[in-house]
């Protein structure tokens, strides 16, 4: 299949507006790219199809926000941490996970990886993807 010039990023954000978290699945090897891009980083194929992300995932590391890594506009997130998240579909990404603070960090570190669930989060002017603890 020939590569198409298409608006992948715009469609990803439009899908979020419609309540769907989407990625792109490789038609050759089945790997899922999230966030979605043109070509598969597993096998190099560029024949990709849109798929809805289930949302089930696991968190493998925990970093709490601090002076350098927080901003006033992150405040509506509530308590949260940053870390490595692995989707059920296999994609790995750095992500925000809500529901983590100094109070429960030690307990969660003992249990890593912990279950998390993808959700749609409203930022200033657009929707994005964050995760919530799913314990």
């Amino acid at each position: 299949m020939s590569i198409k010039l298409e608006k992948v990023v715009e469609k990803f954000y439009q899908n979020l507006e419609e309540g769907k978290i989407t990625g792109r699945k490789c038609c050759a090897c089945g790997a899922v790219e999230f966030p979605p891009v043109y070509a598969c980083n597993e096998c190099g194929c560029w024949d990709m199809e849109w798929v809805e992300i289930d949302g089930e995932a696991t968190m493998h590391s925990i970093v709490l926000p601090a002076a350098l890594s927080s901003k006033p506009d992150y405040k509506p997130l509530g308590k949260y941490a940053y870390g490595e998240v692995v989707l059920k579909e296999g994609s790995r990404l750095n992500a925000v996970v809500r529901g983590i603070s100094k109070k429960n960090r030690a307990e969660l570190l003992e249990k890593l990886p912990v279950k998390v669930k993808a959700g749609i989060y409203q930022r200033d002017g657009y929707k994005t993807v964050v995760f919530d603890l799913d314990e």
Partner: protein
Amino acid sequence: MNKNMNQTTLHPYSRSVSIIGVGCTPFMYTVDNEETNGLTEGELFGYAALKAMEDAGVSPKDVDYYFHGEASPLNGSNYLTPNIQIGNWFGMKGKGSIHHSEACCTGYLAIEQAVNAVASGKYNCVLTGCVEFGDSVPAPFGPNDTVETPKHPYKREKMTMDRFLATTMWLYDRNYARSFIAPMNLIYDDVAEDYVRTRKITPEQMDDTLNWMAINNRRNAAKNPLALERKEFAEIAKEKGFDNVMDYMRSPYNPKMGDLLRMEGMERKCDGAAACIVCATEMIPQIARNLKHKPIEVLGIGSAACESTNPHFEIRATEEAVRQVYELTGVKPEELDLFFANDFIITSHLYAAEVAGYLPYGEGWKYICEGRTAYDGDKPINTNGGRTSFGHAHAASGLADVYEACMQMRGACGERQVKKLPRTTMLRGYGGSQNVCTIILRTKD
């Protein structure tokens, strides 16, 4: 192999390439000092370039081409094509050149670019230089000005931290990384968190390790006349009324800025330039007849890049770049005599040294806390003072490390000369969210 990490097999250079000359300005806050306030990009780059030519015993006429690196030329100098604007300053008018920009990795990839150009046979002798105004911007720059507005021909003013942090966002992918928030905020603590979790040390032990890295860097910088910060922390602690330096390092004078990272574990952004003359080894007798020192051969350079949405981007890219350069050169970790890592987040120098096998896995933190990685230890790292004390003139820092490596390998570092004359050195470049490269240098006998 980690999911989504592709690998590259390197092939030998078509001919041997060596560094024959090095030059470096002091790293400084130019606008804070009357003697340096008003220095321009052409003056900084030109000084480093001509020092490198002088060191190599060559003239600008012997140099075929030049590479110009700068992380943020629009922000720092109001240039889109900085290589062209300064081309008359060092006697190379009319010769070809190119500008490249890979953020804090620029100075390391400056060596990669130059070596590739010479190894291919296209050029015999090239200049590669980098410059950065990390601490100042063209003036005047008021609250309503943009990067296009400064009108004065040479005056500069201090770059505020707010402005610097605003521009660091340009290092991250706009489509996803900025939107997802986490990618651009994990740079400060991801490596330290990973080290604590995988090596099973406590956060308190990591805190001590981070502090000792800052102390060791400063001990090195204290003996380096080109370094930005030269007062040792032991002396600062005494002045502040502390009996021992670690009490000071754990105090509010050195506050936590990240989950684990403290203030003294972060770069000192500043202004500076550095340059090298890179020559085909076989052509040295013709081109550099007056060379007074041994050439330093570039054995190989590994490269990898991991955009910031990828988990543990610095670690994964370092692993791949290290794998490549060892596979290409056949060099073993135990052959390394000296190690450099771009440590604008200081944790880098611990982690990169372990990935390279320069320090043993899981034990590197002990070496650091015992002072063994300072210039007078048995495993010296960042003998110039690293980004936290030598300073970080972003693009120029990598070539400043190459300058220091070459001077150490010649035995020309005076008070901070390492105990055993290094024959083989690795430099791990890192920056730009994130380019990584690994350079192995060896003294040519």
